């Protein structure tokens, strides 16, 4: 049985008890009221008899005819009361008494009638007064006796009432006690069994909760019966089952993640190794470029130096052609020196720390402009340098960029009648691009692929001298800042070079390996 049901039963029993007790009380009250009214009826009979006696007395003493009438009335009253009493009283206990009372009352009336007849005989002379008086005394005596009997019977009736009340009370008490005992018994049994049940149920649940809490998801709480504890136990078991499943799933996922993490770590290790390798290779390349260009200078100096020495010291011993040959040697050496310088600059542009300083590009352009104009004061070039251009990056390297681009612009507008060089900035999307444009010789876009490759030139030496390393260097520097470089042009219409220098958030800088 469910606990709730048990509790309901107990509650119902308690309610039943209360209701029964109430009914019992009501019944006993009822009984009491009946008894009381019966009692008062008996009292009324007694009083009426007393009043009848008064009437008799009054009649007999005073010969009051009215009293005689009253006596009759009273007698009828008593009869009436006795009749009523017969309905009020339990015939078993009071039947005989009431019959006796009625009989006595009726006989009283007969006796009284005799008394009246006697008086009348006395009055009429039919009987001698002494005889009449004696008869009257006898009759009065009889009447008195009868009256006393009735009164005594009223007292018996009271007794019967009291007995009845006592019996009622006893019944009430007995029944109440029985009920209380029964209900107490029921409550005790129910509480005890309920307590045991609840205790056991809770103990099981506690054990189960403790086991599950400790991590044993396979613990099964025993399910007994079909009550609430059984339901809770089932719910707990379902819960622990679900927990066991989810834990298994979690463990699986953790294992998978661990595997992934290991894999990632391994990949990272491989990546670092590759990066180290690449860095090493880069550094070696740069060191190589530096060493080579360095070591190439000395013999170059010798070649140029001694050719010059020949020219100076043996001028008189050399004819024109010999001097021309020596000039060619010197020119060649100079060219080679420029190549070496270019290579060195190129290699340097990717070495060293990339600084992030604010750079005034406009001021830089103005400075380079002056340096270009100074040795050639006769050249008239129209410059448009946008003021306030600022960038963030390595000033030294940005200087190389601007110098190369402006150098080119200066060089390739040499043949123009109205050369114009423009330095500006424009936005493309969210990125800022610096532009160096000229209206000089330009280049054929078909060869644009070669534009930034070292030593690849798009013009002949006799058209425009140069070694073709400037733009390669510019591109390297721009890329190192995380930016992009674009060149556009048309033959005879000039060229425009645009580059961006993302401030922060450029290409991630890998730490350079320190070389002593």
């Amino acid at each position, binding site marked *: 049985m469910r606990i709730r049901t048990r509790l309901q039963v107990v509650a119902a029993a308690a309610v039943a008890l209360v209701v029964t007790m109430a009914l019992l009380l009501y019944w006993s009250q009822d009984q009491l009221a009946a008894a009381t009214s019966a009692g008062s009826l008996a009292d009324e009979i007694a009083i009426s008899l007393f009043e009848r006696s008064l009437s008799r007395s009054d009649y007999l003493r005073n010969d009051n005819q009215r009293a005689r009438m009253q006596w009759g009335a009273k007698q009828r009253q008593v009869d009436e009361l006795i009749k009523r009493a017969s309905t009020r009283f339990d015939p078993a206990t009071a039947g005989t008494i009431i019959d006796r009372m009625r009989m006595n009352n009726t006989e009283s009336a007969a006796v009284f009638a005799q008394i009246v007849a006697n008086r009348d005989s006395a009055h009429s002379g039919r009987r001698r007064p002494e005889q009449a008086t004696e008869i009257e005394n006898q009759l009065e005596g009889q009447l008195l006796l009868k009256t006393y009997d009735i009164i005594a019977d009223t007292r018996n009736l009271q007794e019967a009432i009291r007995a009845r009340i006592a019996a009622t009370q006893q019944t009430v008490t007995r029944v109440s006690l029985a009920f209380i005992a029964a209900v107490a018994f029921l409550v005790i049994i129910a509480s005890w069994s309920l307590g045991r049940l609840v205790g056991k149920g809770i103990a099981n649940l506690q054990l189960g909760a403790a086991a599950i809490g400790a991590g044993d998801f396979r613990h099964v709480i025993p399910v007994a019966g079909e009550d609430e504890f059984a339901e809770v136990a089932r719910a707990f078991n379902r819960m622990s089952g679900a927990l066991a499943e989810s834990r298994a799933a979690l463990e699986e996922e953790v294992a998978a993640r661990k595997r992934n993490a290991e894999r990632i770590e391994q990949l990272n290790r491989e990546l670092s190794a590759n990066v180290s390798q690449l860095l090493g290779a880069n550094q070696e390349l740069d060191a190589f470029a*530096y060493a080579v260009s*360095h070591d190439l*200078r000395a013999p*170059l*100096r*010798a070649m*140029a*130096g001694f050719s*010059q020495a020949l020219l100076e010291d043996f001028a008189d011993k050399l004819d024109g052609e010999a001097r021309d040959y020596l000039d060619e040697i010197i020119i060649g050496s*100079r060219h080679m020196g420029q190549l070496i310088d270019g290579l060195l600059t190129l290699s340097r542009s990717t070495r060293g720390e990339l600084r992030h300083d604010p750079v005034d590009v406009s001021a830089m352009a103005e400075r380079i402009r002056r340096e270009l104009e100074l040795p050639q004061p006769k050249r008239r070039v129209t410059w448009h340098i946008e003021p306030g251009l600022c960038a963030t990056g390595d000033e030294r390297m940005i200087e190389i960029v601007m110098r190369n681009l402006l150098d080119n612009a200066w060089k390739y507008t040499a043949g123009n009648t109205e050369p114009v060089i423009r330095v500006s900035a424009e936005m493309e999307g969210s990125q800022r691009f610096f532009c160096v444009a000229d209206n000089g010789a330009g280049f054929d876009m078909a060869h644009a692929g070669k534009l930034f490759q070292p030593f690849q030139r798009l013009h002949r030496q006799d058209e425009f001298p140069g070694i073709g390393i400037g733009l390669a260097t510019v591109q390297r520097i721009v890329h190192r800042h995380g930016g992009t470089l674009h060149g556009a042009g048309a033959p005879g219409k000039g060229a425009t070079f645009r580059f961006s220098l993302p401030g922060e958030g450029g290409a991630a800088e890998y730490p350079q390996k320190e070389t002593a």
Partner: protein
Amino acid sequence: MNINKSILLVEDNPQDEKLILRALNKVNLANQVDVVRDGQQALDYLFREGEFAAHQGDELPAVVLLDISLPRVSGLDVLKRLRNDPKTCLQPVVILTSSDEERDRLKSYENGANSFVRKPLDFAEFAETVARLGIYWMAVNKPPLE
């Protein structure tokens, strides 16, 4: 003019040596130039040791023209040794090198060089630079110890 003074040229490259001597010759300083060809020789010369032990009493040169890349002992090590020794710590030293690396320049000054001159690529410029150097250090500059 320090007629009695000498210039010590520390140069391992024979062509550079010839060119430098020729340039100094143009300004009449060639006969006052002593040449050593590696770092150890330079130290021996300046400390009057080893093969130069016989020259104990000689005066120190007016200036040392020191290349950086030298066999046996490098130019910078020679410089350090010079500056560490009380006898030679005031010796004027000009670093004359083909390197234009910033760190070479900085290291030279850090180790106490008086001057840093780059050998120009262009020969004419090279000759002129050397000549000017010679004139400056021999005629214009006043050495620490007269």
